[in-house]
Structure formats: C-alpha cells, structure tokens
C-alpha cells in the first residue's frame, strides 16, 4: 500500500483522529504509522491532547433560569402569532369551538360536590381497586363510569408530562421544597393564582416545578416525591378541559375522577377556577386519597 509522506500524514492526523477521513485515506495513514515511529508518536500525542481537552475543558451548563426565560418568551411569541392568525382564521376557530363544546358536554362528569350518582352515565359499581394507600384510612368508594377515556388527549398529555419529567427530558425549571417560593415563581407565568397543593401526608415532598402546556393553555407543573415514587401535579385553567374519568370517587368533599394508562394512574378534579390532575405510578386509590387531601 502507498503510505503517503510524513508531511501529508502529519497534516491530516487531526481529521484521521476525528474519524473524518475517507476509509482509503485513513488506511494510508495507518499504514504509514505502522512503519514510521516518529509519526506514530505524533499520532499518539494528538490523541492524548484531544483526550486531555475533552477531559478538562469546561462545558458550561445553561443555568435553570435560561430555560425559564426561553420558555416564557416562546409562549409570548406564540401568543403573538396566534393573535395575528386569529383574524383570518375566525371562521374555522368558530367551527372548532362548537366541536369543543360538544365534546365537553359529552365528557363532563358531575360537578364537584354533587356526587357520582347524580350523573346518569355512572354505573353504580364498586371499583374494587387494589393496592393499599400509604395511609391507613380505607379506600374511598368507587364507581365505574360508562365512558372509557383511553383516547382522551387530556389524559395522554398528563401522562406524557409526568413521564417526561420523570425521565428528565423535561427539566424542572424551579427546584424548591418551599410551596410559597413555588407559588411566587409561578406568579404572572400562569393565567391563574396558583395555590401550591399541600398534603396532609407529611412524607410527600415538593421537588420543584416548571411551566408546561395542556392543550393550548399554559399550566403549572409541580413535582413531588413520596417514598421513591414521583408524583406529578398539574394545575390547568378550569375552562381548558372537561373533567371526567373512568371511575369517580367522592373524597374529601369533592368528586375525583380516576383513570389509568398502563402503569400510570391519574386523578383529576375541579376546584373553582382550576383543574388539578395528579399523575403517578402510585396506586389509584392512593392518588384519589391524596387528591382528597389537597388544601
């Protein structure tokens, strides 16, 4: 094999080391290195130097606040874009609104406090949900709703947010265990006054929060932890989504709807202006009970 001159080899040791050379030229260099100790030493040196640089070079990490700033500005840019489009899209928006109202009428569960039996779509059937809650109180009575919600995009989004935060592809923008600090952080970022849920169960620790979206609405994401399980609480504007689920429970003076997607369970309820959704791999009965605790 033709091996190339020392000059040629030295010139292209860098691209060779970086794996950027055509295989034929890489082979020429390697053949040369096998027969030229000086160039071989230089090649080892270039690799060493590159390794030292990668080992030592500072790779500054973006500060948390940068993700928040960008997130905030993107949403503002999006709203500005929506306003511009609203004029010509008015017709189709009106049509879409009609559809949303229809869906809401079909999917909406009983209003808070009225109890699941007030809704004719509820089949009076105990849930028999398994899995003991961490607290000692008995599982609340459950009822099977006639409608299945597997195709509910709201549910899909809730589970998606939970899983992505757990898998750390959606970072928490705010790390705090202090509910007051979290509420202050969300001030002005979400279109409602956020009351950060506090649980009667003292083992539940707040980890932090981030801005998120459910549907097209800004929403608050709060991350909690209970005995190694991640618990996501999403707080969504109340007019964004109908509230419903596969099973309905009366607990803590409110109606909580619970559903499951695979291993992940979620519980939703309306509280005045907002809708709370709890998502976790904790047992459904635990989630429902925690939903009842939120004050």
């Amino acid at each position: 094999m033709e091996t190339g001159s020392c000059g040629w080899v030295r010139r292209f040791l860098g691209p060779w080391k970086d794996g950027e050379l055509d295989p034929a030229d890489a082979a020429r260099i390697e053949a040369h290195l096998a027969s030229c100790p000086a160039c071989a030493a230089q090649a080892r040196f270039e690799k060493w130097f590159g390794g030292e640089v990668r080992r030592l070079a500072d790779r500054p990490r973006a500060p948390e606040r940068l993700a928040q700033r960008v997130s905030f500005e993107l949403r503002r840019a999006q709203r500005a874009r929506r306003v511009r489009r609203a004029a010509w899209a008015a017709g189709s928006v009106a049509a879409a609104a009609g559809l949303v109202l229809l869906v809401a009428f079909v999917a909406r569960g009983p209003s808070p406090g009225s109890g699941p039996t007030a809704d004719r779509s509820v089949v009076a059937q105990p849930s028999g949900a398994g899995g003991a809650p961490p607290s000692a109180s008995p599982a609340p009575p459950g009822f099977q709703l006639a409608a299945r919600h597997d195709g509910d995009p709201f549910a899909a989004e809730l589970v998606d947010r939970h899983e992505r935060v757990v898998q750390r592809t959606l970072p928490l923008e705010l790390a705090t265990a202090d509910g007051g600090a979290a509420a202050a952080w969300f001030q002005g970022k979400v279109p409602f006054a956020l009351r950060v849920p506090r649980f009667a169960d003292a083992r539940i620790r707040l980890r932090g929060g981030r801005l998120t979206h459910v549907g097209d609405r800004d929403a608050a994401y709060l991350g909690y932890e209970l005995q190694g399980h991640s618990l996501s609480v999403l707080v969504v504007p109340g007019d964004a989504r109908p509230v419903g689920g596969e099973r309905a429970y009366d607990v803590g003076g409110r109606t909580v709807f619970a559903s499951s997607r695979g291993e992940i369970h979620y519980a939703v309820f309306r509280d005045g202006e907002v809708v709370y959704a709890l998502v976790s791999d904790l047992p459904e009965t635990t989630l429902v009970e925690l939903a009842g605790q939120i004050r």
Partner: protein
Amino acid sequence: MGVPVDARKFEELTLPLLDLLYSVGVRYTRNREDAEDLVQETLLRAFRAFDRFEEGTSLRAWLLRILTNCYYNRYRRRVHERRAADLPADDPYHEGLVSDASLRCLRDPEATMQQPLVSDELQRAIDRLPEAFRVVFVLTEVEELTYREVADAMGTPIGTVMSRLHRARKLLQQDLLRGREWAVDPEAASGEEDVPGAAGDGGETGEVVRLRTAR
C-alpha cells in the same frame, strides 16, 4: 421544508440542546450573561423561522448557524465596543499576529504526555485563541460535532474548518506546552487558511485528502 411548530413542540426539540448553545455562546461572548441573551435571541429567531428548517438535517447545526449569525449581526459589535479597551496590548494570539513560523511541533511527544494538562491553563489558552479558531476548536474537540456540522454552523467550507482546527490545535499546544521540549516542525506548521485539495470543497491539485463527505 418544515411547518410552523408550537412552542411546546419546539421546546421539546431544542431544550436538550440548550447546554450546547449556551456553551458555544460562552465561547463566542466570553461572558455568561451575554451568552444567555445570545441563546435566547437565537431560540426565538429559530422558533419564528422553524418552517425553514429542513427536516432530516442537523438541528444543532441549524441552531448554531442562527446563533453565529445573531452574534455577528448584533452581538459582536456591542460586546466589542465594551471590551475594546480590555484587550491586552501584548495578546500574542490577537488575530494576525501569529506567524506560521511560530507554529511548532513536539520533538519528544512521548515525554510531553507524561505530564497532564491543567484545567485552568487549558481554559485560559482556549479563551486566548482567535475567535474563529476558538469556536471551531470547541465545536469539534469539546462538543464533538462533525466537520460537516461545524461547516454548516459557521457557514464556511469544510476545508476552512479543517485548517482552522489544525491551526487552533497547534496554537494551543504551543501555548500550553511551552517550556516542554519543542522544535520547529515545518511539516506540521502549515497555516494556510484552506487545506488545499480537501475534497468536498471541489479540491484543487496538490496534496489531496478525501473526507467522509457522505455525511
């Protein structure tokens, strides 16, 4: 051609690249606060222009290209206005002052490798590199982008990336290993702006090397 994207989807795509953008922003501006502003502007521009991103191409190269443009269009001027007075008068790496003859190579590379580099010294030496060399060096050596991605990000031919990288390595080695065994090695000291005959740029005659241009 892509389509307009919603903020949430855009964030999903770009948040994993935030550290990279910030890191490169810091290399350009040499200042963390300026880098934050640069990254924010970059992502807002990218969001508005996302319908022009070609699917299947490198998103990080596309974003870095926008970052580079933002920096040159607006930022560089402002930063330089502020810093002009701070440039050390005897900065040996101020662009143009380094002659090709001063680019050296090791006489005894084996002995040099016995002593590890020191992180702070490396950091300062990278910061002393002329801007174009600094960014190419960091993108390839630290962030491990391919030459093609760096060329796309910088808007330069791939041969320019190669020669800048070569020069950047030699400058850094000289800077960091001064005092260890040195000798002029004219073979390795070539410092022309473009590598002659680097395929992919429509090579000329002379020394020819073929890159893996398929990527």
